[in-house]
């Protein structure tokens, strides 16, 4: 391969290329702006924690309200809170049955659930678990927290609910 000839500037033989250089400087300024915007988006929560990243379904008064991270990250610890308001019957029976739909539940690694469920059951389209209640829990919001880690990136649409009760649906996006 023949070597490229290199121009002279005055007495200096140099591969100067001001047309390219000016374009590169301009693009560099654009790049700085993009970096700033990305950082601002990250602070706002577009890539995980932050005001944009925290979301919940339904109103405070609803019988089931799920708090979740709208933007998750692969294999990062994350919380999913099911706020359930037990009916008087459920409080009297001392337990409530919650469920999370598949395949979402299979794509998560569930580290722990607090309070620890007494029993969990696998069904074809959901995973159910029974949580014991104190007698005074009727009509009050009881938080059941799932500490989870996403194992698959991408968009996940899912549902959760209370057996014989309300169902909620939401989406999460998991960054790789």
């Amino acid at each position, binding site marked *: *391969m023949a070597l*490229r000839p290199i121009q002279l*500037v*005055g007495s*200096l033989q*140099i*591969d*100067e*290329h*001001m047309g*390219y*250089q*000016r374009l*590169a*400087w301009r693009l*560099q300024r654009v*790049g*700085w702006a*993009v*970096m700033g915007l990305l950082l601002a988006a990250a602070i706002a929560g577009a890539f995980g924690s932050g005001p944009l990243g925290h979301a919940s379904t339904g109103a405070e008064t609803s019988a089931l309200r799920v708090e979740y991270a709208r933007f998750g990250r692969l*294999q990062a610890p994350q919380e999913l809170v099911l706020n359930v308001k037990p009916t008087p019957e459920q409080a009297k029976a001392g337990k409530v049955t919650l469920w999370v739909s598949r395949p979402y539940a299979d794509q998560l690694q569930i580290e722990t659930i607090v309070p620890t469920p007494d029993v969990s059951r696998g069904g074809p389209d959901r995973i159910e678990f029974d949580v014991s209640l104190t007698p005074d829990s009727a009509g009050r919001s009881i938080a059941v927290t799932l500490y989870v880690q996403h194992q698959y990136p991408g968009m996940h649409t899912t549902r959760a609910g209370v057996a014989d009760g309300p169902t909620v649906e939401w989406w999460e996006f998991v960054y790789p």
Partner: protein
Amino acid sequence: MNTFLRVAVIYLVLMILFRVIGKRSLASITTFDFVVLLIISETTQQAMIGNDFSVTNALIAILTLLVLELLLSWLKAKSPLIDRWMDSVPVIIVQDGKTLDDRMGRARVDLDDVLMAARMSHGLERLDQIKFAVLERSGEISIIPKDDQK
């Protein structure tokens, strides 16, 4: 596959980021710049190998990096255009003892940097003793003294 993708993505993103911040930013290595570079490499390492600490995974990651380097150097030799975009070009910033202010401003080089390079490389005392100062592709400044100063 997983390791290859991780390493390739990180390689590409780092290449773009370091081109965007400019060659002057981390070129004059002060102690603090060095610390920042170390922190960046530490942060990157996690993303490249994940939770897999096996020797095989490390070898795949290293192999990927080296092959990408090889590929890039081959592309650069083939195409002057790619060469320019990857490594930029040298820019003359002082000519016959006069600073080219527009270029210096855009490249974020000030007179102090030029004079420091002149002192360190040739023991020059003043700007008017410099024939050419060039901001090289590496981000360093090279100085050519005027003929009567040699």
